[in-house]
């Protein structure tokens, strides 16, 4: 160390200003890089494609008897691993202690946090509101699982070689098994919707174009359809009955509407 260095203070005013300048410049560049992207924001990650449809599901908790057929049909049709559930059943209770049956698929949020956080756009929202997964692109970082407010996302922790015990009793597999290391979730039986529309069918009306859980419900507690069609059953229920959605305060705008169970107070 030279004598000159020893004599100088650790930092003088000019050097301090230079550092401040460099830090300020860096911050400005960082902001400049971020702002153009932020300006586009209506929904952070944007939607892929336009659609005349807006698919929603209505679950009537006052009708549900807790048979779990919707769970079993989902396990079979989507070939979901036995220790995994896309469609969850839960015996819940109201604030007054009255039990009711709660089921929950993926809510296909209008503002899906999972799609916002995915670093590779492996999960994204289509114009018709469906939040879908690209299994070929997913890197398995699991940030979407961390960000989902509803615990709907499942990870393939190992390669599968199991027999599906729900087949063929509850239906047969209509989609391929997902590989090890990617995230998956309920799709609203997207394969049925897309194929059905091609064949001129109406999802929610024609069974071949309707999610398996809706078809199998013995009491008609689950309804599916197009919210953009005012004559659809789902649009009528939402217009006439009191409904609520899960964790609405987060602004995720789920596309699954619940008709409250008896004795349930909704805000």
């Amino acid at each position, binding site marked *: 160390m030279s004598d000159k260095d020893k004599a100088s203070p650790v930092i003088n005013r000019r050097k301090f200003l230079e550092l401040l300048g460099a830090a300020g410049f*860096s911050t400005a560049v960082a902001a400049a890089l971020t702002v153009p992207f932020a300006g586009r924001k209506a929904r952070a*990650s944007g939607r892929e494609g336009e659609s005349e449809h807006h698919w929603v599901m209505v679950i009537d908790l006052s009708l549900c008897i807790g048979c779990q057929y919707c769970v079993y049909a989902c396990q079979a049709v989507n070939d979901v691993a036995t220790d995994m559930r896309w469609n969850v059943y839960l015996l819940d209770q109201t*604030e007054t202690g009255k039990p009711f049956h709660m089921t929950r698929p993926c809510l296909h949020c209008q503002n899906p946090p999972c799609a916002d956080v995915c*670093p*590779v756009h492996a999960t994204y929202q289509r114009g018709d509101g469906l939040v879908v997964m690209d299994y070929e692109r997913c890197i398995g*970082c699991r940030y979407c699982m961390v960000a989902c407010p*509803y*615990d709907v996302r499942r990870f393939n922790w190992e390669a599968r070689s199991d027999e599906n015990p729900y087949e063929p009793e509850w239906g047969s597999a209509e989609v391929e098994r997902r590989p090890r290391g990617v995230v998956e979730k309920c799709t609203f039986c997207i394969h049925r919707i897309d194929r059905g529309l091609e064949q001129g069918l109406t999802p929610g009306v024609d069974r071949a174009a309707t999610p398996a859980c809706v078809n199998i419900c013995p009491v008609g507690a689950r309804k599916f359809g197009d919210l953009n069609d005012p004559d659809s059953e789902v649009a009528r229920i939402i217009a006439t009955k009191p409904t609520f959605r899960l964790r609405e305060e987060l602004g995720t705008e789920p596309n699954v509407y619940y008709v409250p169970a008896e004795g349930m107070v909704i805000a």
Partner: protein
Amino acid sequence: MSTALKAWIGGLVALVLVGLVSGIVVFAKGLVVTGLTDRVPWGLWIALDLSSISLGAGAFILSAIVYLLNLRQFESVARVAVLIGFLGYSSAMLALALDIGRPDRFWHPLVYWNVHSVLWEVTMCVVLYFTVLALELSTVLLESPFFERWAAAPRVAHTLHQFTPVLAVAGLLLSLLHQSSLGATYGVVAARPLWYKPSLPVLFILSAAAGGVSMTTFATLLVSMLQRRWVVGREVINRLAILAGSAMAAYLYLKLWDWAATTYYSNIPAREVGLSLLLQTTPYGETFWWIEVLLGGIVPMIIFLWPRMRENDYMLLLGCALAITGVVMLRWNVTISGLVVPQDWSPGVAFLFPRLSYHPTLPEIGAFLGIIAYALLAFTLAVRYLPVYPMVRETE
């Protein structure tokens, strides 16, 4: 080579082998061998990523100070800071390679951009900054005796060296971005009330500054004590301590207000419920107050800023170790606390779901130890065989 050094290196090699075996088990069987679940999908390895990146932060701070501010008295530690940065970031990448479900698709974020994902920004910055670190480190490698047989080496090293200020600016920019956005990774998750706050990105970068400089100081002081000679001037080490202490003070000030604003002066029900669950069922309260705040924050800050204390080698070494522990504890606590509190999505009663738990398994711990051993082994060998402390060679 002394017996102690041989034993140290032997032990580290053994741990690296344990890590390799663990890694093979993970790749062969999948992440099912970990203690992670669908509801606690991040754990020990994520805490390792965050910690090793934060402890590598000395590189960007000291590079900026030396090459932008031209404060040459810190030049003697710039190289070791860059080396520690390189080892920290490469450790994080090793852990990530195990942690992501599809390591064969590690390149996807570079090609398929989602500019709205904090994690995409983190990935891009980390990859670019790792490149910066590798270039900065290559000048050190080129000056090593091994490259003396290659005539062009000094010229290449000199050319690279001329770009150091450019690299320092790039490093400052990239580090400011990703050290903060690693905190934002948690801070933007609206679904989890314990995380969702704007203070996390700033807490992360300030604690990284304190932890990164502490790590550089710790390594330099320890090497000097073991070699029984000053590899850099003792005065430089004092100044590093002041730098670490100042960063720690800034971090603690923000931490005070973060705590006061989110828990003392306000009570959002969801946050209160989650916090009381943590306090009742986990050691979160103890680890937060004792390790993050007191032993890992206030105590090292006092040691760094009190001249009589920092001038004592053993006291300063202890202070650095405590600061590092505190910074690591913050990352562990943030990661785990946000995940083990269940998400009450059902309209029924809160506490319907029990607190979730996470216990790392043997392959997880094995890989964790292996990666740390890799960094320590590489550091030991680099200090022994590379001109990491350039001033020493000049005086010899």
